[in-house]
């Protein structure tokens, strides 16, 4: 996270850790249903075999030593359409919903989130100087309209409508490790809704590509995959 901070333990209870069978953290992701995980497709580049991955839920520390931690195997991988950087993982068995394990809401199909809306990105990436290097971190960001994002000198015309830009609200101080696959969530009424998946360049330095997959562009696809599988 950029210019972020350690989060309140279990205040983002949909956040999961995508790990290898040897429990090495690969990427972030989110619980969207007791048996389904949303993450970035590029997190799964090393293998297309479901059982090479594990999902850790209900954790705050990267060491996953809390009693609330649940571990599930992955039994199905569903890559997003048209090469989009989005993927669904089906768990071998449903996660048990608890105070530390709660799904995030999905946005309505094709709903556009307004520019300037304040949202949060979360992950276990390093936060230099902000403490809590081994716990889940968060940073707050403001959504930038694609037209404005595309007008920047680095992203000139490369942001597609199924992608989303956001920038740090409290100013940029450094470029820090990104947390692919993790969520960008925004408060709608009294619920957090996932509008983005951390996908590409993220930080203060010139981003190399758009930063978030726009989840609302894929809501129909997500629901369809979950319904038919």
């Amino acid at each position, binding site marked *: 996270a950029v210019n*972020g901070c350690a989060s309140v333990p279990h205040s983002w209870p949909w956040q999961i850790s995508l790990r290898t069978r040897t429990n090495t953290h690969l990427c972030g992701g989110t619980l969207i249903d007791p048996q389904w995980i949303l993450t970035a497709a590029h997190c799964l580049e090393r293998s297309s075999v479901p059982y090479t991955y594990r999902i850790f839920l209900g954790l705050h520390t990267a060491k996953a030593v809390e009693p609330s931690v649940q571990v599930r195997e992955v039994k199905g991988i569903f890559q997003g359409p048209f090469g989009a950087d989005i993927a669904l993982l089906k768990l071998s068995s449903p996660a048990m919903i608890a105070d530390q394990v*709660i799904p995030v809401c999905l946005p309505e199909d094709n709903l556009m989130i307004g520019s300037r809306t304040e949202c949060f990105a979360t992950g276990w990436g390093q936060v230099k100087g902000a403490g809590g290097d081994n716990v889940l971190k968060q940073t707050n960001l403001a959504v930038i309209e694609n037209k*404005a994002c595309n007008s920047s000198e680095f992203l000139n015309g490369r942001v597609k409508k199924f992608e989303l830009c956001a920038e740090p609200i409290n100013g940029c101080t450094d470029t820090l490790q990104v947390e692919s696959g993790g969520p960008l969530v925004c408060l709608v009424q009294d619920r957090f809704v996932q509008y983005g998946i951390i996908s590409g360049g993220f930080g203060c330095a010139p981003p190399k590509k758009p930063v978030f997959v726009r989840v609302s562009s894929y809501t129909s696809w997500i629901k369809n995959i979950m319904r038919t599988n």
Partner: protein
Amino acid sequence: QGSILDSYKKTEGAWINAHQQSYKANTAEECAVRCEVEKKFTCRAFLFFSKNEWCLTLSRTSKRTQIFKTINSVLYEKKVYLLECKKGKGEDYRGTKDRTQKGVLCQKWVDSALHKSNFTPENYPHAGLEENYCRNPNGNENGPWCFTTDPATRLDYCSIPECEVECMQCNGEDYSGKVSRTESGFECQRWDAQEPHMHGFLPKNFPEKDLKMNFCRNPDGDLRPWCFTTSPNKLWEYCDIPRCTTPPPTSQLGYQCLSGNGKDYRGKIAITESGIACQHWSSQLPHRHRHSPENYPCKGLDENYCRNPDGKKRPWCYTTTNTTRWQYCSIPQCSQSASQTTDEDISRQSASPEECYRERGLDYRGTASFTITGKKCQAWNSMLPHRHNRTEKNFPKADLRENYCRNPDNDTAPWCYTTVPTVRWEYCNLQKCHYGEPLVSLEPPFSSLEPGTEMTCIIGNGKDYRGAVAKTNSGRTCQEWSSQEPHHHSYLTPETHPRSGLDKNYCRNPDEDINGPWCYTTDPQKVWEYCEIPKCAPFQQECGKPKRKPRRCQR
């Protein structure tokens, strides 16, 4: 056909002090009729009290009139009296300009001591010859005029600006004209539409950017006004707006300290808050950028001074280090003497937010900026959409920063003016601190975004349903909640139930009917009917609601 109220500007929770006449009235329309036929004075506005079925016609309103906040009244002001600009020759001008173009005070129209004339209110009863205001009773080609108080000058014209500004200053961020075609001829898409192009420039998120109709605007600090086009093959394009020949307003002179978001800061601080020297705006090293002085001629991008050319929270600059592209600067607030500002003061300015308030919240200094019904707060230093006197200057100890909720006037709780033109002010979405509770609570200080964004299924009785189903279970189309036709339902309206999401004609459950969402139908034979909306799956019922509330990062 329109309503009699169309010619009035409506503001909830407002009051003005003026000569008045009291009437009984069941509806605002009835009161408007009273105003139209008022014999005792020229009625320019009225106050309507729906609870008491009572109204007051008022003699005075203008852009300069002080408005007070109240709880139960709705102020209706005749729009014509609020315009301080002229259309065409200005025969309809009813503003309060009372000096000629040379600055000489006008003579009262009823006064003939100095210059005698036939232009009296009696002879021209419909020409608005009130006080000594500039008027154009004879349709003069040069616009409104007046007899002067200078014995040597019988009459002179007044300098009244045109209402429609069809040229632009600087980058056209203040352009408010009606050009709605792009430079190559594409028709513009409406800002409140999502077809043919979906976009995030929602008018509600940019209340100060005047995103009306499909007019060319510049909400993102681009080089000049633009719009999304109605062509599916062309997302957006610049509009060809002529530059004004007159210089930009003198406010561009700017401040030497921080006021508001610092867009007018023109001081010489050139170092970021973490102590990095700023890059020169005219340089492209080490960071390539487009905020050059040539691209942004009115933003004061001199040397490497901290500036805010793009509407960020505070002045900032590109830094001279490769690893940090940009950073905010620490600029002393205008309310403080720069020489007295200490590191401690700056630290206090950026202190952690408080998300609950004690007692009446007089010392609340948090960053909550949404009202109890989810409306975004208007910035205290802004006079749009609501003009007011709760400014930093008038209430220097009230910390009226940005659009944060405050209680400058000893009200019962922190409040703010809202960015919704029809709702003047509301209390904020804040809770009272419990005894012993830390000032930083776990509740994030923001509220809802947009109705219709999330729950497409119903939980419980569906009172929180905000989906877009607008047909009943027998297939009838729903009546709009704001409409009283074909079924009159004054008790359940967006005004009476502002938190029930009564948007358009969507099925809702404002009265918490145990059988779920419903709507009035457009069928005159069927007043209302339930809607068929799927129940949420068990896991959806709790989605997105953490048991432990997250907290914003503290700087």
